[in-house]
């Protein structure tokens, strides 16, 4: 091929101008991030129209689109690209924090009554660990609030300004999910222990926990989708990098404190540690280890994401 041949089009491409092909090209372009599409969409669409459609080509585009979301690259304005990286890192911190909170609520549920609450009052190491857990939870909640509220308000304002009802509907998911779960909780509390047979109580409890997990997942996905779709002031994400780091550090501190709590309990009150006072009367050490595992995994995702957000240059 001569140097100028490529400009003339090289060998004659196969043309497939069917409606199916045009639909596929439109769908394929939608799979890519908006910034990538803005830069490469036109020429990439032209290439897709010329490329014979095959399973391998479709698979190749799907994998590349996922990669474009995970590793944004390209010269489509370097500042928004950096903000894009910060935004995705912060969303990863937020999602792992939600997972961490679910595990934390399980821990709180296990330890709020007998025999653990009295032990926390009488045994110093258990009590101090518990106090650190509570303090870490408060710090992480405050950091997420400080970072998240201005971003959520900006997304809501952008949704109203652009009349993007989808964006507003996505933002409405967390309060609606929380209200629905609170309603379910109040309903179950009002019913008391009727009927009192054990299988029914187990089903009710699992349904209550499951509905909370579903509400948490739905809320996280909806907030993430709203944040990814909204073009808001990038400085909000830049300012959220420090609270995201504080959140991740607080998660790490709480995970360490939960570890210390279990070890201290095993030494200071072995009978309580080796009991069956875990979730749903399960083994206490196994419940503790399960909660700890979830917290450790969530922290393992949050810390590098928060470091990435902090280290991403914005100029």
């Amino acid at each position, binding site marked *: *091929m*001569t*140097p*100028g*041949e*490529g*400009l003339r*089009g*090289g*060998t004659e*491409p196969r043309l497939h101008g069917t409606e199916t092909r045009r639909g596929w090209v439109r769908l394929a372009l939608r799979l890519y991030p908006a910034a*990538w599409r803005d*830069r*490469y969409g*036109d*020429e*990439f*669409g*032209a*290439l*897709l129209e*010329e*490329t014979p459609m095959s399973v*391998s*080509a479709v*698979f*190749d*585009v*799907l*994998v*590349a*689109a996922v*990669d*474009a979301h995970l590793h944004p*690259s*390209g*010269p489509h304005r370097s500042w928004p690209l950096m903000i894009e990286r910060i935004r995705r890192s912060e969303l990863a911190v937020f999602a792992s924090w939600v997972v961490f909170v679910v595990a934390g609520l399980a821990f709180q549920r296990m330890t709020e009554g007998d025999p653990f609450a009295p032990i926390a009052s009488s045994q110093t190491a258990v009590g101090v660990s518990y106090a650190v857990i509570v303090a870490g939870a408060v710090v992480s909640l405050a950091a997420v609030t400080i970072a998240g509220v201005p971003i959520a308000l900006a997304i809501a304002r952008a949704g109203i300004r652009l009349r993007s009802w989808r964006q507003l509907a996505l933002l409405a998911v967390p309060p609606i999910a929380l209200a629905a779960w609170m309603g379910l909780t109040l309903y179950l509390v009002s019913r008391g222990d009727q009927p009192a047979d054990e299988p029914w109580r187990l089903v009710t409890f699992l349904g209550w926990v499951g509905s909370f997990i579903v509400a948490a997942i739905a809320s996280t996905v909806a907030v993430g989708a709203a944040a990814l779709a909204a073009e808001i002031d990038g400085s909000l994400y830049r300012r959220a990098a420090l609270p995201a780091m504080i959140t991740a550090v607080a998660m790490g501190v709480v995970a360490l404190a939960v570890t210390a709590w279990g070890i201290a309990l095993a030494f200071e009150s072995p009978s309580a540690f080796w009991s069956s006072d875990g979730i749903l009367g399960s083994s206490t050490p196994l419940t503790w280890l399960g909660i700890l595992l979830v917290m450790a995994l969530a922290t393992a995702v949050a810390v590098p994401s928060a470091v990435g957000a902090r280290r991403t240059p914005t100029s």
Partner: protein
Amino acid sequence: MQRPTRSTARDPGLLILASLSAGPRHGYAMVEDIARFGGGRLGPGTLYGAIARLEEAGLIAAVDAVDRRRPYRLTAEGLRTLAKEIDALELVVSTARDRLAQAAR
């Protein structure tokens, strides 16, 4: 400056740099050219993923679009990178060839 992702003869970034060393080409022409000398066709997603990375690294640059097709050209940095990659590959190839020859004796 960022080098192509892998120093292998099948790396999409290296194949694109090699294709553009003959002059500017747009996406489809690159796919056809690479199929001739690279032993396989690059998928459209793979091609544009590599183009985005190379352009971000400053190794290639877009030129004016013809219709919706946008050709790309090698930058000076891209030329230097391609030369370094070729040297690295040649060292691997010559070493492997010598060792194979010794093993055959």
